[in-house]
């Protein structure tokens, strides 16, 4: 019976496998095959030869992927669960089984393990826990028992070990269980249930590494190590009945946790549904807007504008709207802004460069126009202006001594607060004022640009703010 399964599900031309005589990995790999065979025969399970993918990392254990005749990918050390995450999310119809070692999944890959468990992504992780790094020659792993020796712990391991099944359960895995090499029937049952379980499942299988762990810790032959499993592995119910002080001499075989948390790809399918039912949120590709009466007011090849204020006043949005308006008009525009610490609190700077011709350099060097909404930003940015620069400031500010550029001061903040009724609209009031003074764009173009960038439901408010800004400018021009 077993040999038939070997012919059916293994890449026999690549056998015999590389594992040492007496290694537990062969038995555990066979357990996976038996579990899969059972599920594939059961038409109800939905599992077929074609929709299973075996993913492994690096280690002795990881070589199992190459021997199993399914779609298989042998990845990099520690990352098997992360590769599997991509496979499962991109195609939720696949049944993704990760074969991994204790080092692979709980040392270098520990972060991926806990996060996949937390997401409750439907992967089945089968850990071949031999309590050592077999592949690299018996160094200690995160599951080596404390005070045992290893190639890198000649005086004994002082780290405390992980219990991988409990670690996964603690991280949110919705199915965890343990198995070993000796208790085949129960181990196969747990692997089978883990594959069937819809959510993150982990089966920690105690393996046997006679070559390194066994030899270094005087555990005897492979047969002795198997005998140890026979005597110390207890089916979960029996283990649970043990008095507390006895438990440390035994380990459980069987189910640890099982619950029905919602699964990641199921939840993501709701996201897809809701994103699609909301219709395209995207701003692109957008309709070509042909504005009526597009008479250009913007004549410079390169017109550099700097808008400054404090974080939260919306100068960035204002610069985006200016650039957008230029784009609507078929002109060129570049928008950029300060990021990072500079953009949090303190002064905030945003720039728009507008021009008839294609624009090169993306930074403003000597602005033709400066808007300042706070004293700090005015003081900071009023130097180094272009010769014919124009400055617009809020009327609460005082122009610095040396400022020679033409300067207009308008009650922008006050108008937003008292006339429009929302301080938040100061940036839009400012835009109205800027366009009123500079005549950069036809009014409809600026309105369209504003509409593209404001939250739904605020159109009336913002267009009113724009009008009030224009009114401010008109008064100033007349005065």
């Amino acid at each position, binding site marked *: 019976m077993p040999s038939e399964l070997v012919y059916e599900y293994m*890449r026999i031309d*690549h056998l015999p496998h590389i594992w040492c005589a007496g290694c537990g990995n062969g038995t555990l790999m066979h357990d996976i095959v038996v579990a899969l065979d059972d599920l594939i025969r059961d038409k109800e399970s939905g599992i077929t*030869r*074609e*929709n299973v*993918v075996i993913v492994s990392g690096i280690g002795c254990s990881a070589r199992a992927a190459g021997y199993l*005749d399914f*779609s*298989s*990918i*042998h*990845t*990099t050390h*520690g*990352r098997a669960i*992360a*590769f*599997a*995450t*991509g*496979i*499962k*999310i*991109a*195609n939720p*119809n*696949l049944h993704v089984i990760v074969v991994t070692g204790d080092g692979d999944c709980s040392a270098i890959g520990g*972060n*991926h393990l806990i*996060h996949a468990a937390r997401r409750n992504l439907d992967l089945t992780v089968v850990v071949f826990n031999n309590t050592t790094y077999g592949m690299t020659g018996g160094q200690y792993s995160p599951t080596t028992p404390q005070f045992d020796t290893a190639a890198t712990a000649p005086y004994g391991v002082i780290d405390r070990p992980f219990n991988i099944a409990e670690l996964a359960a603690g991280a949110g895995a919705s199915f965890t269980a343990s198995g070993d090499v000796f208790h085949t029937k129960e181990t196969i049952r747990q692997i089978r249930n883990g594959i069937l379980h819809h959510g993150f499942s982990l089966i920690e299988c105690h393996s046997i590494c006679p070559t390194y762990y066994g030899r270094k810790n005087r555990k005897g032959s492979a047969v002795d190590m198997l005998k140890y499993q026979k005597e110390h592995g207890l089916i979960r119910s029996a283990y649970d009945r043990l008095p507390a002080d006895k438990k440390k001499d035994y380990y459980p075989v069987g189910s640890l946790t099982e619950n029905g948390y919602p699964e990641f790809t199921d939840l*993501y399918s709701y996201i*897809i549904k*809701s*994103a*699609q039912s909301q219709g395209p*949120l*995207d*701003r*692109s*590709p*957008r309709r*070509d807007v042909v504005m009526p009466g597009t008479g250009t007011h913007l004549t410079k090849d390169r017109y550099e504008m700097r808008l400054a204020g404090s974080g939260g006043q919306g100068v960035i949005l204002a610069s985006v709207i200016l*650039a*957008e308006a230029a*784009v609507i008009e*078929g*002109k060129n*525009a*570049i*928008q950029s*802004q300060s*990021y*990072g610490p*500079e953009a949090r609190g303190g002064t905030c700077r945003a720039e728009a460069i507008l021009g008839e011709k294609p*624009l*090169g*350099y*993306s*930074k403003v*060097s000597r602005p033709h126009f400066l808007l300042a909404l706070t004293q700090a930003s005015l003081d900071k940015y009023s130097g180094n202006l272009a010769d014919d620069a124009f400055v617009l400031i809020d009327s609460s500010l005082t122009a610095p001594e040396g400022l020679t550029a033409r300067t207009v001061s308008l009650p922008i903040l006050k108008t937003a607060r008292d006339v429009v009724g929302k301080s938040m609209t100061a940036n839009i009031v400012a835009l109205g004022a800027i366009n009123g003074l500079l005549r950069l764009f036809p009014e409809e173009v600026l309105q369209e640009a504003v509409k593209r960038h404001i939250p739904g439901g605020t159109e009336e408010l913002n267009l009113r703010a724009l009008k009030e800004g224009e009114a401010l400018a008109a008064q100033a021009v007349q005065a």
Partner: protein
Amino acid sequence: MANVLMQGNEAVVEGAIAAGMRFFAGYPITPSTEIAEGASRRLPQVGGHFVQMEDELASMAAVIGASTTGAKSITATSGPGFSLKQENIGYACLAEIPCVIVDVQRCGPSTGLPTSPSQGDYMQARWGTHGDHPMIALSPSSVAETYRLAIRAFNLSEKYRTPVILLMDEIVGHMREGIRIPTPDEIEIVNRREAGNYGAYKFAYRVPEGKISLGMRPFGEGSRYNMTGLMHDYSGFPVNSPVITHELMERIMHKISDHLDDILETEEYRMEDAEYAVACFGGTARAARDAVDAAREQGIKAGMWRPVTVWPFPEESLKKAAANLKGILMAEHNYGQMLLEVERCVRGGVPIEFIGRVDGTVIPPSEILEKLQAMHAGGAEGHHAK
């Protein structure tokens, strides 16, 4: 004719989706974060999947994993995260799994200046992962070009079954510019060449006669085969053989180096009669073009030579351009990484001057112009990084 104001990072997302990208895995990092944010919003709208992973190692792994199912996959990051992705980028090179990695370069090393521009990952893009490996990297200088190159990155990646790096910089990633979104019929899309359903497939890693690279049947669609980051035979099974290793390495290197005509792209600006050329890449080109225009106004015959495909380095194109030059001015935001390539290709044939900026600010046109003036007057004094 521009009709949309779009940020460079946003153009990556839109271009990639136009190319058929349906999977993104990433971890937030300035100045690339808008790519992750955009992908999280846009992908579900087109039925694709977005996942924020626990780190960049995982993101790169997930992207490769997703690609094995046939999904065109992408990740985006910046300096520190790019370093973390390197091991798995090498995996994708050897296992030949198409995917696109965006690196919006920022000022480093280490955490450096997170919001400031740099081009200091130029060599990392080529040699960041260990071992010899093929690499294609593209570097845009405008928002519209970012959109176009995001598509081209996928096309090259699928055609040659290899990872492709979109090497951006903060200059382009963070600026907004007007662009006209091409209509679907204006876009060329290259899809992965499918392989048939062979059941237990022994030749997943043998290139059929007359083809450039391997076909690939997505996992889950019948063919069962193995992929590995170990040296492998035609079946994708690990081997130790020096003969097979040599053959495999030759094949993955030559699938790129034998098709440079298809892969390489350069921009030449006012180079027809140029005596002096500014060599640069990515966002630096913007100041370079302005400086070239200004120099021309002063009677200096200047031009700009810019590799758009930055890896492989367009060696022949540079050699051809250099034949008629009196001087080359390499301008880049690092200590002279592309400069090494330029020097290697020109081999002393033309004097080379250098502007390298590593202080987190952008080289302005005036600095390039001054250097061009000095070169023209014969007064430039050899290069040094500053």
